[in-house]
């Protein structure tokens, strides 16, 4: 795993958004698969240990935005696969919109002066 200045700490609240987004584009995933994909997509610059991912999944499931079902993997292991739900899709849309606005605002505030 890469160390050093390249690593990005996730901002509070963005993990939920990333998980929802990943599930929306990649389809059902188990927790390990999800972590691996996210690290890959993030070019290994994303710190994402199981310790943070798990509570996020529990939280999202409790909110009813994702649903977990037990299935068997291709290697005949059992694993819990998470799927995004309709309220989850709606929430993703809303949260993404909010995030865009926030980023736009931050961009202006941080970059205008330079």
């Amino acid at each position, binding site marked *: 795993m890469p160390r050093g200045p390249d690593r990005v700490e996730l901002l509070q609240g963005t993990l939920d958004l990333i998980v929802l987004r990943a599930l929306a584009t990649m389809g059902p995933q*188990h*927790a*390990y*698969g999800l972590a*691996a994909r996210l690290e890959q997509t993030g070019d290994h610059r994303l710190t994402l*240990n*199981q*310790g943070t991912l*798990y*509570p*996020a999944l*529990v*939280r999202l*499931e*409790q*909110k*009813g*935005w994702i649903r977990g079902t*037990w299935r068997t*993997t291709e*290697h005949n*292991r*059992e*694993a*819990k696969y998470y799927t995004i739900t309709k*309220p989850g899709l709606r*929430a993703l849309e809303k949260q993404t919109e909010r995030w865009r606005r926030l980023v736009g605002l931050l961009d202006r505030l941080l970059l205008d002066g330079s």
Partner: protein
Amino acid sequence: MDPDMWRVRRFLHRLRAFLRPGASERELARELTAQLGLLEDEYRRRGLRPDEARLAARRSLGGVDQLKELHRDARSIPWLEDARRDVPHAFRSLGRNPGFAFAAVATLAIGIGANTTMFSVVNSVLLKPLSYARDSDRLVRLMMDMPAEDSPTRAPLRTAVGLSAGEIAELQRRTRALSHVGTVGPVLMGLGGHEEAARLQGARVSASVFPMLGARPLLGRVFDSADERTGGGHVVLLSHSAWQRLFAGDHAVVGRTIRLESVLGPRRQSHYTVVGVMPGEFRFPTGTTQFWLPFQPAGTGPVIRGPMLGRLADGVSIEAAAAEVAPAVRQLRGHPARIRYELVREQAELVAPVRPALLVLWAAVGVVLLIACVNVANLLLARSAARQREFAIRAALGAGRMRLIRQALAESLVLALLGGTAGVLLAVAGVRLLRTLATTLERMDLGSAVSFPRLYDLGLDGVALVFTLGVSVAAGVMFGLAPAFGRPAGGASASLRASRLGTGRLLVIAEVAMATVLLVVGTLLVRSFVKLSGVGLGYDPQQVLTFQVAVPVERYPDERLKAFAEAVVAGLRAVPGVQAAAYANQLPMVVLKDTFRVGRMPDSRAAANPGGADARFVSRDYFRAMGIRVRAGRGFDEAGEPRDARALLINQALARREFGRESPLGATVFVGRDPHPWRVIGVVDDVRQFGFDREPEPQFFAELRRWAPEAGPLFPLGAYYAVRTTSDPWGVVPHIRQVVRGLDDRAALFNVAPMQQLVSTTLSRPRMYAVLAGVFAGVAVLLAAIGLYGVIAYTVARRTREIGIRMALGAHGTQVMRAILGRSLATSLVGLVLGLAGAAAGARVLESMLFGLRPLDPATYVGVSLAFAAVATVASYLPARRVMKVDPVAVLRCE
């Protein structure tokens, strides 16, 4: 969908996870296993050996326990999860120290049990709406305050304003502020036509009373205005219990008739048609009302008046209603302006006689609970010192200060809830005891001042249990936090010790002060009761049986009643075990009052001196039977010689008033409007006729057999019989029944009670107050003594080393002990002084509950101080004595 729906959903999930911890733990374990499996597969794919792969998987997953913890936090509700662990921990920790746990729980159980008991009483009697009326806080009653000059008793009098049926109708027409106006009055009737004669207590009510109270009949109908018009009269509503007893609950009762005989005033018997049956909870105006009659159908006999009741119209305040009703009533009744009217809430008026006492007693148990809490807080303080190591270890392991406080709170809450549970059990017994103490003979002839209002509503209910839970939690937090804050965050042990001792001493001062207040209150009430019950009654109630006889009215017109009573008494004399037997038109404690003018001059219409005296019409043996001493002269002649044809006995109060120092014997007096003189043949002791707390009034006794009444019936309440027995008065009852039955096969005994019971029943309220206040004071003092003991014992235990060193340096054991004792007594003294000052400041509220004592009675305060000083000395000496056993050598060896 509601955008915030997910919050609700999340909370429900968490709650479920909390409630079913097993399921979510299993799910977690399953997920972690799956996770490990997947990782293991991954590492194998990368070419590791199976065992290496498993290790690598574990490593990369990180600390499993930490993960689980994070997971739990996300899944459930963290502080509840903590509580789940804290509570069993608390139980284990209490279980390790059963002596402490028992002491704390028992102390709390007493405090909480007493509170639940008193709250149940306050709630059922003062707070709960009346059970027989809808919206009972809208019911009002009109009271008036009469100055002495208008009052029949020549003393300022507060009483209900009475209105007749006609006045009620007129008032209803004139007022808009009251949606209903009505009246109610008691009535006593004989039941005719049944196997045995009997007396029933009932009420006359105006028809408007039923819609006013929102009362519906169980069967049939209630009264309507037609029942109040001339000729509408003879209808009756039965209570549930009368229906069960007289008609065995027959549903076809409506339309049947019963024969009722009026026994107050002229005796008449009439048939009454049953128009309905009221449900069991309709206890109006009292719990013993067995039937209802229309108040007074128009044009039937002299006008009778009953207290005015009303319901405030919607949206009308009681002040606005008073402003409208008072002038209207004044006009109707023609009262002068100096008689003041006041509209009061019915419920408040009903419970007014017991309200101050109940509030005082409630406050007293509140103080008992505070003392109990202080004691437990003290115990916890002592214990927390012993558990210093445990807390230090837990703090070292990373438990935060809040976490430790939460842990301590969990322990105290567990204690409090255990105490509360035991307290509820105590309260069940307490409520039962209270009911016994408050229960009186339910007799109309003893007046309403005797019985405890709303006793039938008294009980432990859901509200009381919620109250108990609240009190327990509050108590738990209170005594749980005291040690938590008394304990500094860490730091020097010196400051630790100083602070803890300081807290302990403060607690003891508070405890002693509160217990002193209660001891003063308890002593005042108990002494007052002792004084009251020690009052010379003027007669001897021991071994006297009293009873009345109901006879069918059709067989006994007035002129035969005297003969019947004479025959009964003659029969009773022959009964073995009977020393004397007599009859009278009333007995001591019976509220009937017959006042006649008595003077040495014929009725001179001398308005200046009203000269009234209470009249007692008795049979010859009355003085012997009741144990009233004839001070001078003699009683009525046995044989009833003609020389006694116009003889009277007077009491000392009347003798003093009319004759001063002269001897009244042989003198003549005039009674009422009778132009012929009566001769005084004897003077008897003053009798407390109307209760313990009423000074004896001037009284005269005439032989009933020879009395030609000016007007009115001979026995307004029926004849009362009194029998003096040689042993247990109840023992002669079967013989008496035989005698009475031998005279008339339908005669029946009623109101059978030893005279002692009549006396005792009139004392029931002061007795109840004295018992409760006494018990509360005793408990408070005991708890305070235990608290004092505990603190001293703790001090001695903590300072063993210091004491040992001092003694090694030459201090004497007794010196050290004296120092400790002195300090403890000084602490108690501070508490005692504060308590005495508090009691003196607050004792005024007791004024109305005391008899023959002032709230600042010096003897009480001195006695309480001495008693408390003695208790404090003993409670301090016992633990301080242990100082003498400290062995300096052993202590130094430990160093």
